[in-house]
């Protein structure tokens, strides 16, 4: 009896784990806010598997600056162009700092 109940709990636990993994693998749309503290505040919708380089292109399309002039930071951490938003753990509604090169 005990073993089966433990077994049931275990199965339930693994089921939840798998569900979470599936949830993590799915691509989500997130909205990021970029602020340059000089009056430019931009809200950009993007997928969380976009890279920072793609995000810079989207911001450039919206602000009119060149994409390679934009620098995205979070308190001295300069975000690199080839890493995805998901890997940087940028979630929906998060604010990033916009600087220029």
């Amino acid at each position: 009896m005990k073993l089966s109940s433990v077994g049931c709990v275990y199965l339930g636990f693994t089921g939840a784990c798998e569900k979470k993994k599936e949830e993590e693998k799915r691509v989500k749309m997130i909205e990021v806010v970029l602020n340059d503290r000089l009056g430019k505040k931009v809200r950009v919708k993007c997928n969380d598997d976009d890279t920072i380089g793609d995000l810079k292109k989207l911001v450039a399309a919206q602000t009119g600056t060149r994409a390679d002039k934009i620098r995205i930071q979070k308190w001295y951490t300069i975000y690199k162009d080839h890493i995805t938003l998901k890997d940087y753990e940028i979630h929906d509604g998060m604010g990033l700092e916009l600087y220029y090169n």
Partner: protein
Amino acid sequence: MANRTDPLAKSIRGTNPQNLVEKILRTKIYQNTYWKEQCFGLTAETLVDKAMELDHVGGTHGGNRKPTPFMCLVMKMLQIQPDKEIVVEFIKNPEYKYVRILGAFYLRLTGTDVDVYRYLEPLYNDYRKLRFKSNDGKFTLTHVDEFIDELLTKDYSCDIALPRIKKRWTLEAIGSLELRRSALEDDFEEEEEKDEDDQLVDGLDSGDNDKDYYRARSPTREKDRDRKRDGHRYRDRDYDRDRDYDRDRDYDRDYDRDRDRERDREGRERDRRDRDRGRRRSHSRSRSRSRDRKDRDGDDRRRRHRASSSPKRPEDRDEQPKKKKEKKAKKDDGTDHPDPEIAEQNRIRASLGLKPLKL
């Protein structure tokens, strides 16, 4: 003190020559170690020595965008503003390719349009390799003529916005410049002669190809674009005409059954007139008549259609809705979303080459 422009220097394009480089990049160069150590108190002669030591070209690199020594030397040249003869010497020297590139870059920033074309175009013949440091810090391979082409055609290079110069055909039209003579012109002429001989044999008219080549260069390119766009519309009109034409042909067949094809073609004029007149009269009458005719003379019609080279009608009809369906499917992938904000974002993403938003 060290960063002030030479007081005897002329202003370029209405401003301090150092202002050709943007403020942020300028500040970065002033804070750079290479600038502080090596570029202090340089004159035109000592600058040549430093230029000979260059081993790569580039703008800025890395996360905090560190400028390259090439950038620092360009800045120094803008600061001391050497004479035009010295710059031309830089460009003409054959041994040191980086000195050449430095001179070419400086001339592109400061020289007049005619000078730029006159002194930079001979460099198209230089095929030597260059080491280019890209924004992420990696070195890539490029060539002198590729770099010169970039300077002459694009408006941004090495993180500096290049000043606008007039296009070459404008200067040719004014008469300040002659037509460009390529060093490979003799080879081209030989090839052209060979092509002409082939054409005479094949009987093809490649005059259109030449026309297109020049058209691509001329400002009438937009006419070309419009023509391509309207080509689609003409096809639809033909389709309509075919449908009505057939109806009228059946109507006329009543009068003269022994009509041969030649007369049909001439009779198209008459049919068009009749179509304009007959269209408003009664569609149902002609339609029913054509339907009867289909039963009676179906073979005749089919034979006639098969003989012609234009697309057959049942297939034509199938193609049109299929095309419409494909178009609709494509839009669903990207920009056809009820929410206008998301549709707008998807449109921007599509123009940048990114996948649409996952909803």
